[in-house]
């Protein structure tokens, strides 16, 4: 980081952008009552920062500078539009902002004055999060708005991440913002009994962004890592803003623990490596340690929820220095709890995998029979693995074949194809060499 007063680099501005963009949009949205005006004003302010900071240096409070500049730019814009087009709404809004009718003028002073506790900027940031993730908006719109308004990602970046044309994503954002404006989706943090119901979509959006990034392999370039990192940043923000919501902390812990394994998840040529075969020496100790600590903090609160329990399961994996040391009994117990709070066939499938480690593949197979997951590739791959371990190779080959037909990515397809061939069952695969990535588990 550059010293105050010394010239700032592009990286300095980028760092401030990453951390302050969403907070600035949040404050300005309350000041101007319009997402569009707030966005434009904050973008203008960062354009000014790029222009001024390299020669003048980073100001003592970059966030305060951005908010003050954005507010000025927003008022300038309203003034121009009000005089040019005689638009009464703008003129009235301008009068309200200028006369201090509303909390706007105090925002940056408050920002400078309060750097801890729940201050106005924090409240505004939470308001923006809950508005972006309002249940009246489609999930795809919630995700796009969150990345755009809170993460400052460009429309092109969001479109690339979700594999849709940029024009489609632009339209999605325009429509979502129009709905917020026209239907008057309020700019507020839900209270009391409303909160649990409204927190759900917020957590789901952040986790979806994380998974979208995490599921991308090395072949997809750095975009996946950046998306996961943004989800973790948002999760950290939410957990800090809602310290009394253990599920927010649980989600952050879950993402940190999963992300700690990212480096060992693919072979250098992009092949998939399953958990049991991963080189645990390459797991990233810092996020894993933080994730485990957060799980312990959640456990002390004793208000378990799905994200906390999934985080706890990942923490148990993280605790084992080798796959063989995994405490499967504890994992099965955690899955039992997870099934109680969030019943569903996918959770039951994951529980069966842990059960097979504890009591053998026969127990696992019995537990997956009857699950309604016929179109879920992982279900067939898991069944196939149990059948291999039970020596029922022809049935295993048929199950791998079904999984292969449903494979969701190239890496997955290659992985399953190699598994299938390694069985050497006539009529399936080509009986080629067994997959070197995942040595057969010891029973």
């Amino acid at each position: 980081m550059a010293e105050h007063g010394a010239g700032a680099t592009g990286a300095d501005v980028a760092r401030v952008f990453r951390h302050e963009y969403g907070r600035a949009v949040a404050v300005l949205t309350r000041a101007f009552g319009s997402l569009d005006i707030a966005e434009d004003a904050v973008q203008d302010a960062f354009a000014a920062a790029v222009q001024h900071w390299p020669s003048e240096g980073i100001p003592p409070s970059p966030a305060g500078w951005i908010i003050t500049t954005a507010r000025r730019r927003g008022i300038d814009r309203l003034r121009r539009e009000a005089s040019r087009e005689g638009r009464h709404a703008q003129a009235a809004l301008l009068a309200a902002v200028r006369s201090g009718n509303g909390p706007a003028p105090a925002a940056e002073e408050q920002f400078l004055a309060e750097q801890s506790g729940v201050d106005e900027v924090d409240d505004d940031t939470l308001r923006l999060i809950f508005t972006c993730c309002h249940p009246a908006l489609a999930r795809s719109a919630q995700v796009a708005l969150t990345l755009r308004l809170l993460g400052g990602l460009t429309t092109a970046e969001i479109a690339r991440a979700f594999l849709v044309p940029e024009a489609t994503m632009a339209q999605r954002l325009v429509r979502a913002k129009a709905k917020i404006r026209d239907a008057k989706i309020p700019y507020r943090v839900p209270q009391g009994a409303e909160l649990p119901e409204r927190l759900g979509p917020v957590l789901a959006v952040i986790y979806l962004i994380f998974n979208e990034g995490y599921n991308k392999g090395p072949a997809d370039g750095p975009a996946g890592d950046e998306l996961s990192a943004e989800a973790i940043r948002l999760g950290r923000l939410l957990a800090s803003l809602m310290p009394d919501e253990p599920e927010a902390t649980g989600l952050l812990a879950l993402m940190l623990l999963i992300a700690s394994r990212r480096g060992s998840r693919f072979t250098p040529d992009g092949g998939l490596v399953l958990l049991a075969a991963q080189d645990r020496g390459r797991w990233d100790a810092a996020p894993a340690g933080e994730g485990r600590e957060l799980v312990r903090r959640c456990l002390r609160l004793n208000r378990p929820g799905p994200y906390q329990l999934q985080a706890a399961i990942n923490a148990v994996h993280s605790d084992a220095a080798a796959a063989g040391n995994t405490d499967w009994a504890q994992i099965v117990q955690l899955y039992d709890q997870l099934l109680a709070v969030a019943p569903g066939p996918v959770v039951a499938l994951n529980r069966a995998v842990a059960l097979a480690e504890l009591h053998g593949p026969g127990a696992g197979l019995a537990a997956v029979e009857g699950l309604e997951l016929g179109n879920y590739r992982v279900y067939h791959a898991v069944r196939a693995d149990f059948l291999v371990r039970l020596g029922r190779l022809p049935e295993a080959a048929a199950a791998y074949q079904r999984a292969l037909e449903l494979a969701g990515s190239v890496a997955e397809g290659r992985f399953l194809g190699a598994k299938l061939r390694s069985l050497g069952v006539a009529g399936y695969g080509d009986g080629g060499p067994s997959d070197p990535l995942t040595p057969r588990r010891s029973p």
Partner: protein
Amino acid sequence: MSQYLLSIYQPDGPVPGPEVLEPIMRGLADLNREMRDAGAWVFAAGLHPAESATVLRPSGGEILITDGPFTEGKEHLGGFTVVEAEDLDAALGWARKLAGVTTLPVEVRPFQH
């Protein structure tokens, strides 16, 4: 304050008997009273079944009249309430009660002014 249209969607077919309908109508009357007391009530009405509808369609300078309803489907607008509310969350609060009382899906749409 904004106004919102709360549309109640009803499945086509025979109307349920009085043992089903009467408690619903009582619930609706209570809810309308609650809305009035809160100053939220603007208008509310139930409609005859969709087969009673007639559609007028401009075509080549003329207006064509046909037997309705306008939309195909197994569900049609069965009634509606107009409420005045501070914002969407407040309107959704009334819509939630309306869906609960009628046991039917409710669509919420903002008025333009």
